Every structure is written in structure tokens, then in C-alpha cells.
């Protein structure tokens, strides 16, 4: 190869546009958002901001340790949104992983029409989130929805259920719709991992008469654990920043509002840039921490070598 220092200069030259752009559109706005979180700023006049230190975080009307939270932190809107987000992320990712595993195992079998099933499975993934939120909102409609109709016809319920409005059901509805939409993603990633597994190992196990379940636990699962965990992290990070599905399906109701929804409501609808930014900065830290803890527990390493 040609002169290494020359090559390295080329590399930085080629990277410069991307790096500059990422600084302008990601690092700078992030820095400004964090700065806003220490100020009192109204959305209508960003220049008239007043530095208030940690007031937005721990002050009288702050996010944490707020004396006005008479029913305790977890009953406040912010506390609820944290709890909602984690409930949503935990159940949707867990169910998606299980469903994805099942679908991938099924698609890994040889049968007639497999290509067709595989294509059909992709459909929910290809549908935009807003569309799937509206579509399910309509199917789960409390009066005219087909799901309620089916449940009544089957004699399972006598009174139609307000799936998206009733606080008792709203969160589970959101989780179900998310599972429907993202299981294909999980399934495809797991399927890709399954197809790299050595076939002869399975032939041998079959000859030895190893029980399929045992084979799954002792051989398949450990072998696909790496890719599986990476897929789970991707989904987990995605689920923790959920906004659009909840905003459209349940109109950001307090029983389902997510941290992102809370941030947007405070920042844009109520115009409190400072307070909203404090929430967005907290969200950033909370998600970062959650991902870090999860990666530690799952012992996943994201290194450049694996890229």
C-alpha cells in the first residue's frame, strides 16, 4: 500500500464532512439541550432564558424531590411516565423476543410455502408505526371495532372493552400492538443467526436421540445468544424512547404516557423548554444507564472488531 501517513490523512479528509455534520446536528443540539435544562426558558422566546441551576431537577417544581408530589414520586406525571416506559419496554421486548424466537424456529423448518410465509411475516414490519397505530386503533375501537365484535360473537365478553381508553387495558394494548409490529424484526435477526448454525451437529443429536427441547436449551440457545442479545439491545433502546405509537394509539393518556411523550408535552405543548430539557436530559441518562446495566448483565460486548 502507499504511504501510511498519506492514507491516514485521506481517511480523516473523507471522514471530515461526516464528523462535522454529526457535531452540528447531534453533539451541538445535545449540548444545548443540556444547557437549557439548567435554565428557565419559554419556547416563544429562546433568547430570554434565565439560569436557574438545578432548579428544574431538584427545585420546588423540579422533576425529582418535588415537595408538591403529595402522593409520592411514582404517582407524579414524571414518575408515571418513567414507570410506563419501563413497563412497556420490559414486556414488549420480552414478548417480542419469545415470539420472534418461535417464528424464527418455525421459519427455520423446511416446508412447502416457506418463502411465502416468510414474506407475509415481513408485512407488519413494513407498515409505518403511525399507520399500525391507527389501524389497530380502528380494529380495537370500543364500539365498532372488529376485535370487540369478535369477542362478543365468541361469547367471551358481554360488554365491549375500551382497549385504548380504559387505563386498565391501555398499556397492554400498546404492548400488544408493538409486539405485533416488531416481532418480524426479531424473527428475521434470529433466523439469520439460526441459519449460520452447523447442520451436522443437529444430525448427530438426532442420531443420538437427544430430546428436541434439550437440544434447543443446550445447543441452539447458547449458539445464538450473541446475536440474540444484540437484537434485544437494539429493541430495548428503541422501546425505551417510544413516542409515536403511544401518542397516536392512546393519545398520550396518563396511564400510558412515555418519558419521550412527557418531554414533548412539557417542552412543546406547555412551552417550558427548561423543564422539558431537564426531563429529556434525565431520560438520556436513564436510558444510558439502563442499557449499560443490561449489557453488563447480558455480558454483551459491542466492539469495533465485531462490526
Amino acid at each position, binding site marked *: 500500500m502507499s504511504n*501510511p501517513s498519506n*492514507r*491516514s490523512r*485521506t*481517511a*480523516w479528509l*473523507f*471522514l471530515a464532512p*461526516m*464528523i462535522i*455534520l*454529526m457535531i452540528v*446536528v447531534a453533539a451541538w*443540539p*445535545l449540548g444545548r439541550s443540556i444547557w437549557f435544562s439548567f435554565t428557565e426558558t419559554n*419556547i416563544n422566546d*429562546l433568547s430570554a432564558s434565565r439560569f436557574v441551576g438545578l432548579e428544574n431537577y431538584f427545585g420546588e417544581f423540579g422533576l425529582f424531590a418535588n415537595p408538591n408530589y403529595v402522593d409520592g414520586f411514582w404517582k407524579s406525571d414524571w414518575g408515571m411516565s418513567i414507570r410506563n416506559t419501563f413497563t412497556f419496554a420490559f414486556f414488549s421486548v420480552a414478548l417480542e423476543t419469545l415470539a420472534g424466537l418461535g*417464528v424464527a424456529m*418455525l421459519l427455520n*423448518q423446511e*416446508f412447502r410455502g*416457506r418463502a*411465502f410465509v*416468510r*414474506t*407475509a*411475516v415481513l408485512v407488519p414490519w*413494513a*407498515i*409505518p408505526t403511525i*399507520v399500525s397505530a391507527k*389501524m389497530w386503533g*380502528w*380494529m380495537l375501537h370500543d364500539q*365498532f371495532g*372488529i376485535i370487540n365484535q*369478535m369477542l362478543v360473537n365468541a361469547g367471551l365478553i358481554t360488554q365491549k372493552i375500551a382497549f385504548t381508553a380504559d387505563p386498565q387495558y391501555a398499556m397492554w394494548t400498546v404492548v400488544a400492538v408493538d409486539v405485533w409490529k416488531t416481532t*418480524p*424484526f426479531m424473527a428475521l*435477526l434470529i433466523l*439469520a443467526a439460526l441459519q449460520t448454525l452447523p447442520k451436522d451437529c443437529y444430525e448427530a443429536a438426532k442420531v443420538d436421540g437427544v430430546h428436541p427441547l434439550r437440544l434447543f436449551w443446550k445447543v441452539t440457545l447458547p449458539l445464538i445468544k450473541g446475536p440474540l442479545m*444484540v*437484537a434485544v439491545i437494539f429493541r430495548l*433502546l428503541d422501546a425505551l*424512547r417510544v413516542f*409515536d405509537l403511544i*401518542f*397516536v394509539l392512546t393519545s398520550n393518556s396518563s396511564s400510558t404516557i412515555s418519558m419521550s411523550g412527557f418531554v*414533548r408535552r412539557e*417542552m*412543546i405543548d406547555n412551552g417550558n*423548554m427548561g423543564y*422539558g*430539557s431537564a426531563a*429529556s*436530559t434525565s*431520560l*438520556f441518562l436513564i436510558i*444510558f444507564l439502563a442499557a449499560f446495566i443490561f449489557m453488563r448483565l447480558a455480558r454483551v460486548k459491542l466492539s*469495533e472488531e465485531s462490526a
Partner: protein
Amino acid sequence: MKHRPLWGSIALYTLAALLVAISVYPFLYAISTSLKSGAALFDTHLWPTAPSFANYIGLFEGSQPFGRHLMNSIMVATVTVTFAVLLGVTAAYALGRIQFKGKGLLLLAILGVSMFPQVAVLSGMFELIQALGLYNRALGLVVPYTIFTLPFTVWILTTFMRQLPKELEEAAIMDGCGPLRIIFLVFMPLLWPALVSTGLLAFIGAWNEFLFALTFVVDDAQRTVPVSISLISGANAFEIPWGSIMAASVIVTVPLLALVLVFQQKIVSGLTAGAVKG
């Protein structure tokens, strides 16, 4: 698997049929709803008794400029993808083919940006968009969309770039090709499949984005389709025009669905390059 017992086959095909039904039925029902109007909307049968395109036609002549919104979305997504791919290819060449100091850290930073919650930059981005004079303009959305499309494009293209044969590059250097010519004349033809899959994934991301589009564009004429669909409303608050909403949803989804189904192999390879090996 030639020796599957009968009950195994039955279970397999039953599960497969169930899977197809669950995956496809909701969208078929959306299409069906979009063809119904008036009282027929509340009939839950899949096959509409008197199908009509009234809902579709209504979208383009009503008070909501849906055609305009479609054009906005196409424009924003296309510009975003072009931008991300052009910058992504050159950056991926540097990251995939050249050894230099600080590369590992840079790759980690790129991965970090592509995974971080976009809402964390909302207020800073609001200020930036206003300062650039792009507030309330559809095309301005390209700026925030770059946050998630660019790092992800770079990440996937780097993976593909790395797999290209070394000999090819060496031969090109021997022939006196500069890096730019290597990228665009030697590698580009080989990278087509990767470009298609990354381009499509970036397009889908930009096409579906909701949070920024909802926040940075308030003017009705400048909206993109996801926001447009979420805001379709009826004559009064109690009457939600489900037929129109489903018609708009079908229009927005069909091209995407067609792209995904046609290019499914490429998209899956792009996703796995980005995630499984990541």
C-alpha cells in the same frame, strides 16, 4: 427433515397459517375499511358490500392537502437518503479500508449516536432549526433526520466495505487511481446491493419519522404524511373519518410494502449486517 410425523406436519402448517393470518389480516382489514363509507364502515365483514374509492378521492380534494403531504414526504426522504448515502460511502471507505489512530473510538461514537434517544436533542434541535430559518419547512426535516440516518448508513456500509477484496484496491492504486476514483469507479459497482439495502432502510426511517415532523413543522401545507394521518379529523370531534384515515394509511403503506417485499433479501442482509454482526 423428511421424516416428520403426521401430527408434526399438521402442527407446522397450522402454525404457519395462523402466523400469516395474524401478519396480514390487519392490513387487509384496513384496505377493506378504506373502501367502505357511511354506515357500511361499521360492518365488520372483510369483503365490502359496495366498494368505492370515495375515501381515496376525498383525500385529494378535501380540505386536507394530502397530495402535498405525499410530495413533502417523498422529497424529504429522498434528500435525506441521498445525503446520507453520499457522505456515508466516503466515510465508510475511510473506516472500512484504512487503518488509522482513533478509528475504534470513532466507530463506537457512531454506533452510540445511532442508538441514542432522539428526543434528548429536541430543544437544542428546535433552536438550531429556528436559527437556520428552517422551522416550519418540510425540507428542514432533513437536518434532524441526518442524526439517525447518517450514523446507521456509515455503520452498515463500513461492514460491507470491509468485505471487498483487497486485491481490487491494490490493483487500482497500482493503476494510479486516487481514493475518490477507487470509491466511485471501483467499489461503487460492487457495493450496489449494500447501497440499495442501506438506502431503503434510511428511506423507510425518514418516511416514517413522527416526533421531529410533528414538532418542527406546524404549517399544514408543509406536513409529512405520518403527521398528516395522525391529524385527519372529521367534521366534528365525535366523528372520526375512519374510512379516510384508512385510505391515507393504505396509500402511505403500499409503496413501502412493495419496496420491502421486492427487496426483502437485501433489506434483511442490511439489517443483519447492522445488528447481528454489530
